[in-house]
């Protein structure tokens, strides 16, 4: 018998007339579910005739079709040459020596080409000058394959032929007979170009050549010219300096053309207990300051006085003015060290002031510094600010008939770009440009310029130090270089190559072989320079001799906040802004990519209510400010709180905020050039907080070392010289049966060691003393290993793909040793809670260290044991192999890696419109290394110790039937390192340099106590600090 018991689902059912109950009997929900809203546009849904069943049919069909199609391999075509050039063998790389001279970077490089395509830039070891490619030069190869290049000459928006171009422009030039013809060019420093311009001037008469550097060194040139009668820059050889005092000069960065780091690093490695001592006075935290033994944060106005005082303390001349007490003490100390060093000392300064630069020249003369060279001068900066200003004025006055611009972008880089724009309307203008950039777009004609890898050229970098530029590929587009057009304009039938050859044979080579010079890429002439500084009609600035310091001191006045404009290691002056490698390159100091920002000290930030914070996904956010200089405001500049930033001063880098000639993804940051008024890098500034927060792509969340001496070992020169290795580089010990045993002992190892004494055993040595953090290795690794670019938002999620990163750590006390001491003394819960918290914050003026970290290729690798599919395994030669095709993407290995060097491909980064960088267009993919797999989505990747390079070296030796010589084994990073910080080789070859370095007392392994037995080892950083 069934019961009649009724169950009520809700009170509503008690009401018999409830419509809800009735509806619920039919439907699951009372109201219709708004499927249309979340499925998409209602109209399109209704208009679509696809039912759910149809949809399933389609899915089924396409799945079946796709799997059927997958069974058949694609037809691959191979198209050989009709006539194969004899120097090209498919699969074998050719190297050509050439030179980059883009007006900002000058370097002699080797270009690796495969099947006729340049794929990588390497250092030219034969070069005595600038043979070390920095990060930008390494990345410059991508500029060749830039899909936004101008592909042929243009008149306005229309493409024309070169014939028409030359005809039209000749007409313009002859029409300008009663006015001036002006060449506004980058610094060429090219003997042949100077000669050509001379011939052009002879023909047309009314020609003016104005050199323009976007980031000016004009004051240093003026000062040198006034003192030595030659418009050039003094050369400094830091390998001859034991005491270096720098006042605001970022000489490891781009100061006076850069390229000083290799010589500097040379003396930073303790040799017989000696190394150089480096004192840095600066306002922004620069690469140079980070490497200094003693760094004094000084705001720009005080730097002037500090330099003047330094002069007075060294030379004994009195200079009025008073420095704050502690600064005065530091300057006195520096002066006394300099005096003690005598000719082994050197002073450099980056203050953009003729007096300051004169003081530096006088100081170095007073010291008779060995590092200071006024005969072999530097020619790679020739820009003349006054001439540029005069030109803008002349243009506005309508005095210029024709303006030819080469390698410059004044509409972007000039602070008074609006004046320039006004003048541009009153003249006929021709721009030689690779891009339709901010300037070219306003010009009457755009002459499509070739990349330097498609051009001929020559450079005299220093007096008597010549370099040749040769094409490494046929021009990709219908381009002509400026010099070729000059030849056409002067009705000279020779081509530029022959012209250079003639010039060189005539006046440079002095009987030496041109072909040899072309092969080497460089030539050092016994005789002196052939070019005089080209036609610069600026009158020498008069400087009262000896009074410069007094004048400098008098000029040192300040009211309020000061802005120090600088350039970043990655972006420089901004001409390579469309280069995704450089955009994604994390700044060595801030570790932030895809941005520029206002660096500000913690104290000033707190006062202005500006904050930096890490949000839940780990990304860094910062406040925004409006920055005003002389009535010019740059809005919404993100703020980054920078440890070590001088109080009362802020920093902002140039090179960002470009808008034309680059992909939308690359239009990052703000343009600081409008603030770079009168070419002065120091400006008085007012800052007001703007609303909103900026999202940074910063790859390092934690800034301090927290006293973890097992990551970075650091000691002072004094301790290094006097104490035992055990004291400053102790091997960690663990307890075995209550006996302290070093972790290197096999007794405490969980693993059985393999015998690695047979065959090659690769090791990489990294000397923390020689590493300046320049980042050339990072870009070289990108180029060699087809590392993808992931873009800003992915970087922010810590999904960067860099196989090699350069960690930067700050100290939270004054120095790392004090950190260590503090950590040791922490005891008890209360103390650890508060003091560890304190240690997370970097010091106001911290010590800084850089540490390149890549896969450590552990002999006892934690990643290998956890891989469920054995995709990562160890080779006998010490390399930790990664078989991408075997990897299923569990990411266990990355989680088990103590060094966090494994990178996961979250997406497919090539041929994917979501990642519109170089790998997304046919042209950009030409840079890929054909010997390295392009990884796909869902696999783990990491540094391979450039196994493709080691294998090639071995094969070459096998084919020749010989043993491998020391120095032949290289990785991309070790080959790119011009400072000698990275040495790669075979430790089983007992004669090799790396085997010797492994036995060095300073050698240690990263996180040695983990017992991973890495094949990468570091050398303890020794700092030459004094109490």
């Amino acid at each position, binding site marked *: 018998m069934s019961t009649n018991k009724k169950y009520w689902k809700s009170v509503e059912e008690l009401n018999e007339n409830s419509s809800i109950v009735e509806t619920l009997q039919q439907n699951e929900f009372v109201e219709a579910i708004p499927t249309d809203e979340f499925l998409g546009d209602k109209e399109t849904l209704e208009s679509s005739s696809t039912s759910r069943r149809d949809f399933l049919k389609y899915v089924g069909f396409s799945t079946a079709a796709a799997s059927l199609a997958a069974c058949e391999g694609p037809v691959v075509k191979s198209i*050989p040459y*009709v006539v194969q050039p004899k120097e090209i063998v498919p699969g074998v790389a050719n190297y050509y020596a050439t030179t980059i001279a883009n007006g900002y970077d000058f370097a002699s490089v080797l270009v690796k080409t495969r099947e006729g395509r340049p794929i990588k830039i390497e250092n030219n070891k034969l070069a005595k000058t600038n043979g070390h490619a920095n990060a930008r030069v390494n990345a410059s190869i991508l500029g060749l394959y830039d899909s936004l290049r101008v592909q042929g000459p243009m008149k306005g928006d229309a493409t024309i032929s070169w014939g028409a171009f030359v005809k039209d422009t000749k007409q313009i030039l002859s029409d300008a007979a009663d006015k001036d013809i002006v060449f506004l060019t980058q610094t060429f420093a090219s003997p042949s170009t100077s000669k050509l311009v001379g011939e052009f001037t002879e023909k047309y008469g009314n020609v003016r050549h104005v050199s323009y550097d976007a980031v000016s060194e004009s004051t240093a040139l003026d000062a040198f010219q006034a003192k030595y009668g030659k418009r050039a820059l003094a050369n400094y050889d830091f390998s001859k300096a034991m005491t270096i005092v720098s006042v605001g000069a970022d000489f490891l960065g781009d100061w006076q053309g850069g390229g000083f780091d290799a010589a500097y690093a040379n003396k930073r490695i303790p040799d017989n207990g000696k190394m150089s001592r480096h004192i840095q006075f600066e306002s922004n935290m620069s690469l140079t300051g980070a490497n200094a033994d003693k760094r004094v944060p000084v705001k720009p106005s005080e730097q002037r006085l500090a330099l003047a005082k330094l002069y007075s303390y060294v030379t004994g001349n009195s200079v009025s003015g008073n420095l704050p007490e502690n600064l005065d003490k530091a300057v006195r100390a520096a002066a006394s060290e300099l005096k003690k060093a005598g000719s082994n000392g050197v002073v450099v300064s980056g203050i953009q002031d003729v007096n300051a630069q004169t003081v530096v020249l006088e100081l170095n003369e007073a010291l008779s510094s060995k590092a200071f060279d006024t005969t072999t001068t530097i020619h790679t900066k020739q820009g003349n600010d006054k001439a540029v200003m005069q030109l803008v004025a002349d243009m506005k006055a309508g005095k210029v008939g024709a303006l030819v611009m080469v390698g410059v972008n004044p509409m972007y880089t000039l602070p008074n770009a609006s004046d320039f724009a006004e003048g541009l309307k009153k003249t006929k203008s021709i721009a030689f440009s690779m891009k339709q950039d901010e300037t070219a777009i306003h010009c009457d004609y755009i002459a499509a310029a070739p990349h330097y890898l498609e051009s001929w050229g020559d450079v005299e970098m220093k007096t008597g130090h010549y370099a040749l530029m040769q094409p490494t590929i046929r021009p990709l587009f219908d381009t002509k270089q400026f010099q070729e057009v000059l030849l056409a304009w002067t009705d000279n039938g020779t081509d530029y190559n022959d012209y250079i050859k003639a010039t060189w044979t005539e006046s440079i080579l002095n009987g030496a072989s041109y072909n040899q010079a072309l092969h080497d890429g460089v030539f050092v002439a016994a005789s002196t320079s052939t070019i005089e500084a080209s036609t610069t009609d600026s009158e020498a600035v008069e400087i009262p001799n000896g009074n410069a310091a007094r004048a400098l001191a008098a000029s040192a006045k300040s009211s309020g906040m000061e802005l120090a404009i600088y350039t970043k290691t990655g972006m420089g002056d901004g001409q390579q802004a469309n280069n995704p490698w450089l955009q994604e390159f994390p700044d060595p100091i801030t570790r932030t990519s895809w941005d520029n920002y206002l660096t500000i000290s913690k104290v000033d930030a707190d006062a202005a209510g500006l904050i930096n914070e890490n949000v839940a996904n780990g990304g860094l956010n910062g406040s925004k400010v409006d920055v005003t200089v002389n009535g010019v405001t740059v809005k919404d500049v993100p703020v980054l709180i920078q440890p070590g930033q001088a109080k009362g001063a802020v920093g902002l880098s140039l090179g960002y905020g470009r808008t034309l000639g680059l992909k939308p993804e690359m239009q990052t940051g703000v343009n600081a050039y409008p603030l770079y008024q009168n070419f002065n890098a120091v400006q008085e500034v007012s800052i007001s907080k703007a609303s909103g927060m900026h999202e940074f792509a910063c790859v390092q969340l934690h800034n301090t070392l927290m006293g973890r001496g097992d990551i970075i070992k650091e000691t002072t020169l004094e301790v290094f010289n006097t104490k035992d290795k055990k004291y400053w580089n102790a091997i960690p010990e663990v307890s075995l049966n209550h006996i302290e045993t070093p972790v290197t002992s096999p007794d405490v190892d969980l693993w059985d060691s393999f015998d690695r004494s*047979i065959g090659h055993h690769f090791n990489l040595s990294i000397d923390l003393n020689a590493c300046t953090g320049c980042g050339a290795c990072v870009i070289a690794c990108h180029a060699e290993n087809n590392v993808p670019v992931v873009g800003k938002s992915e970087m922010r999620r810590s999904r960067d793909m860099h196989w090699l990163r350069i960690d930067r750590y700050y100290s939270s006390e004054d120095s790392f040793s004090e950190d260590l001491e503090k950590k040791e003394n922490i005891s008890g819960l209360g103390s650890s809670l508060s003091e560890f918290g304190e240690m997370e914050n970097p010091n106001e003026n911290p010590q800084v260290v850089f540490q390149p970290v890549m896969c450590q290729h552990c002999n006892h690798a934690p990643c290998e044991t956890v891989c469920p599919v054995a995709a990562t395994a160890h*080779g006998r030669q010490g390399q930790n192999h990664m078989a991408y095709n075997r990897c299923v993407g569990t990411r266990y290995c990355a989680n088990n890696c103590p060094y966090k060097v494994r990178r996961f491909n979250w997406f497919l980064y090539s041929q994917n419109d979501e990642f519109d960088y170089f790998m997304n267009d046919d042209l950009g993919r030409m840079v890929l290394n054909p010997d390295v*797999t392009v990884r796909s989505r869902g696999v783990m990747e990491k540094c391979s110790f450039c196994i493709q390079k080691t294998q090639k070296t071995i094969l070459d030796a096998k084919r020749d039937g010989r043993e491998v010589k020391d120095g032949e084994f290289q990785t991309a990073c070790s080959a790119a390192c011009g400072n000698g910080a990275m040495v790669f080789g075979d430790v089983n070859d007992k004669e090799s340099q790396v085997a010797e370095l492994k036995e060095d007392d300073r050698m240690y392994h990263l996180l040695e106590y983990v017992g991973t037995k890495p094949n990468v080892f570091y050398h303890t950083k020794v700092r030459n600090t004094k109490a």
Partner: protein
Amino acid sequence: MKHVIYRNLTSSILRLGFILLLTFSTTVLAQEGDPANGKSLFNAQCAACHKLDKKMTGPALRNVEARLYEDEGLDREWLNSWIRNSAALIKSGDAYANKIWNEYNQTAMNAFPLLSDQDISDILAYTAQPKPEPPKPPVLVSGEGGQTGDSTSNSIILGALALLFGLLAMALVLVNRTLKRFADAKGVQVPETEKRTPIWKAFVQNQFLVLVTSIVLLLASGYFVYGYLMQVGIDQGYEPVQPIHYSHRIHAGDNKIDCKYCHSSARVSKHSGIPSLNVCMNCHKSIGEVAPETLAEGQEYGVDYNAEIQKLYKAVGWDADNQKYTGDTSPVKWIRIHNLPDFAYFNHSQHVSVAGLECQTCHGPVEEMEIMYQHAPLTMGWCINCHRETNVKVKDNAYYTKIHEQLSKKYGVEQLTAAQMGGLECGKCHY
């Protein structure tokens, strides 16, 4: 039989007489040459620039002596001096010599001072031979004839057999009927066989048997499905039609051209390289047509080799009539046969130059392939097997001296295999 012998005898007598006649006549006429010797001399000395019936670097030479005599009135004397030193003859201002020299782009003919009068007359005798008729394609006729013969005999046998079986069956039916009739007549009752359950019904009813069978069937189908899936993406035997029919059989087999003559980059590079067309032209500049026998062979494969050579000329832009390049090229889009996936690194020079392997080890009997096909499966297992079995060639290679000594001691072997040398490590091929 005897008849045949007689015929042979008569023909040899006739030939002897002919030869005698010739020997006597030579004393009267100019020296008579031996065309056979002439042919070998011609091929050795002249064929680089001359053909019999076609212009090449130099003019066609069929009946050259007769033509010169008839058209220009030039005798053997002139020919001798031209062949031995044409430059001198041109210099001497000889009209016809200069005419020829200018006609052929002033290309000087090599001097052959070492050729004796007899040699020259041998060569001229060879050139004086009448042009042979192109051989009638014999293949089709004889082939078809043979085939029909075979098939008729087969069908006759089969027909006879069928007839025999038919007769037998008929006999059986007749015997059966007769026996039945006997039985009927004698009143013998043939017992009705009991109706049995059909075998398939019994099978279905036996569940155990069904289970076992289905398991067996499943396993078998699994085996075949696995086999099928495992060969997906393995293109062993892949033999695509190429834009130009290139016969490795003729080049590597018949002509014994070394593989690395054309695939030269295999010695130094990871790629063996498809030869660029200028390599083809090293020989084909003078080989515009194949021999008639070869042409006939081509018909077996349904290909006209001469037409294929013309395709090459078109691609490389060679004007065979004027013997010069037009500059109008159209690169050949070959279809790639051996495709390794991008994640596998393979280096030819390692295997060819260092290990000294024969190309045939991996590529199979290329010298027999009319059309190139993929011989090896090119799977990882195949690579690994070879690395396990092959000894490293360490002799006379200073690179291996030390490592071989140490490793062979460690493993206690005389000869190290590639695997023991580290040839099985993932990273050696995957990076």
